């Protein structure tokens, strides 16, 4: 019976595996290989061993990009988690008027392509006609080019990313809240828990699987951030102070014609994203194991 199941399992999995291999595994392996080559995209790749990785270590653009990625990550992750949790708790409350409409509004940023999100924010923050600067002027302040100003640009990248992504985190937390066992919550009320204690000691531990998904997916999202920065900074030439690893890959390919070097950076980024995915999968399996 067991052998039969295994045979069927492999037969049924074959079509999916073929697609997975062609569109996911092969490109990743090929990128990994190209990272060890010097390649301009047109002529034959030349194997150069670890040369690209050595270059990377001495490349100021690489370190600026890593620093920016980390800075965005550190600010973005707690904020998007807290915002998502806050919105979810609010929208889960039946006392909130028009909560279905609000749920739709919260999701708006998530359903819009990031390039559109970028354009919306560009219009909002335009120094001459943007509504943000108009409001600032009404209150006696001076308009500024917030997105272009090197001292504020990165914060608006984070704000734009939050706006776009918090719909996802809200949805995941909402799903988690909807799935909570009502009897457990009622029991905590009977036991005399106040709202804060109910949240801290009952709801939050039960939301752990949702929290893991939110943290992992948000980390992956923000590590790969590119399109929003690309649009907000006017496209093509992102200033160095805003460069992130995903942009650096683009720059090395399309401006420097260093596809091999770009592949090495892409490999590094893939490994970072992969580590987060592994963490999530491991914890989810553990959770399932505990439940079973």
């Amino acid at each position: 019976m067991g052998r039969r199941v295994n045979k069927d399992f492999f037969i049924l999995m074959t079509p999916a595996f073929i697609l997975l291999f062609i569109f996911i595994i092969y490109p990743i392996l090929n990128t990994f290989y190209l990272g060890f080559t010097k390649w301009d995209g047109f002529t034959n790749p030349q194997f150069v061993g670890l040369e690209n990785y050595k270059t990377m270590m001495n490349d100021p653009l690489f370190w600026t990009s890593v620093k920016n990625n980390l800075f965005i990550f550190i600010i973005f992750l707690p904020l998007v988690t807290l915002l998502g949790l806050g919105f979810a708790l609010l929208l889960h409350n039946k006392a909130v008027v028009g909560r279905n409409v609000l749920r739709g509004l919260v999701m708006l940023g998530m359903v819009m392509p990031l390039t559109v999100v970028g354009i919306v924010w560009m219009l909002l923050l335009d120094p001459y006609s943007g509504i943000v600067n108009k409001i600032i002027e009404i209150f006696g302040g001076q308009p500024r080019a917030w997105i272009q100003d090197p001292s504020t640009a990165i914060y608006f990248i984070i704000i734009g990313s939050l706006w776009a992504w918090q719909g996802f985190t809200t949805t995941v937390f909402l799903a988690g809240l909807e799935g909570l066992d009502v009897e457990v919550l009622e029991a905590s009320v009977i036991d005399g828990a106040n709202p804060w204690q109910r949240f801290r000691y009952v709801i939050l531990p039960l939301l752990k699987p949702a929290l893991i998904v939110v943290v992992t997916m948000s980390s992956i999202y923000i590590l790969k951030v590119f399109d929003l920065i690309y649009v907000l900074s006017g496209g093509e030439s992102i200033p160095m102070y805003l460069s992130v690893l995903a942009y650096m890959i683009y720059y090395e390919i399309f401006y420097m014609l260093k596809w091999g070097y770009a592949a090495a950076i892409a490999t590094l980024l893939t490994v970072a994203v992969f580590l987060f995915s592994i963490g999530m999968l491991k914890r989810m399996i553990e959770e399932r194991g505990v439940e079973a």
Partner: protein
Amino acid sequence: MKRGVRKFALLLSLFLLSAIVAGCISQKEATTPTSPSPTSSPTSPTQTQQKTVEVIVYGQWGGVEGQNFQNALKQYEKEHPNVKIKYVIQSKLRDAVLTELATGSPGFDIAILPWPALIKELGEKGQLEPLNSVVDAYKGEIMENLLEPVKSGNTYYGVPIKAWAKPGIWYNVHVFKNNNLEPPKTLDELKQVCDVLKSKGIQPMASGAADKWPLSDIFEAVLIRVGGPELHQKLMKHEVKWTDPQVVEAFKILSDLLKQGCYGDPKVAIGEKWEAQVARLGKGEVAMYFMGNWINLMLQKEGYKPGVDYDLIPFPEINPNVDFAIVAGGDWIIIPKNAPHKEAALELAKWFAGPEYQKIMVEQKGYLAPNLKVPKSAYDPVDAKIIDMMAKYTVVPDLDDNVPSGFQPVIWNKLFELWANPDNYKQIAQELEQAAQQYYKS
């Protein structure tokens, strides 16, 4: 498990595998360069009688310019009933062209590119069809200074079909008249004009800084006025350093103008999109704007009249001991080595490079012809004035378009940093020199 389900899974696997194999084979066939033979030629007499060829042209001309281009293409289609031209506006032209060339089977026949350094590089990498036959068809008729940047050895990998120039500062005539101002001829006069306009609450100059590339045009104009065309060309080839005293002086002049408020509040100026400044110039919200000849067409489309509502002056003199020069560039056509319809593309390229097509475009305004056979009578008065200036003064190629392609965005970004922090000009010059050493070496 039911036998049917397993059969289905097996069949699906087989189907996927065969589809992939078939795809690979057809891809290989498509990427194998085909030698042009009379039978395979899309424009061979036998085929032209039977088949319509669709030539795909990639470009980034949109708006009025794109419409004018489509109008010109209709003329070619009328004269060549078996050829249809599909013009595809690629907002990310560089990405599209490079990606498709890298696949070995590009989906376009012709691309119109504004980057001569990239064209030469791609040609040298064997990705482009040599266009000597097109150049030879118009010997001595095409502007030499636009042919040179796309030539490697004796091979031309691109042909200019459009010229543009950055002749100077466009100004709003009414703003100057209403404030009893004369267009500035020297740097000191420019600074005085700035002070007067500022005191009247009018932004003296616009820059289009948010798009970054216009800043290199302003910098080049100042550089030429400081050290003449020789300094400009030497810096382009990195024969002088970015920390050369004359280059640093150019940075300092810009820094002073910015700090004086000639470009408005720097915190706002860095958010100016270039296209939006054209309308502001027309309305008189800003008095002057250093920009290329193409805004002549844009201003006229907005209903403003040249000579009446707006006019043009050369960038004010800084060093009286150096010659004046105009920065000019162009858009070049390329044909990929593996273009799907190479013969038809070559025929169309010949038409693009010739006076017939370019006259149609010139008559629609805002377009300068690299083919010198286009009569001057075809030009609008302002465009004709620019052509006269180009004949009178030295013409130099655009600096940032002709540096190693990776260095171009570095220049734009460093100048943008200058706009954001004008006090930092010495450090910016040093950083540009450090970057230049790396890019010119590689």
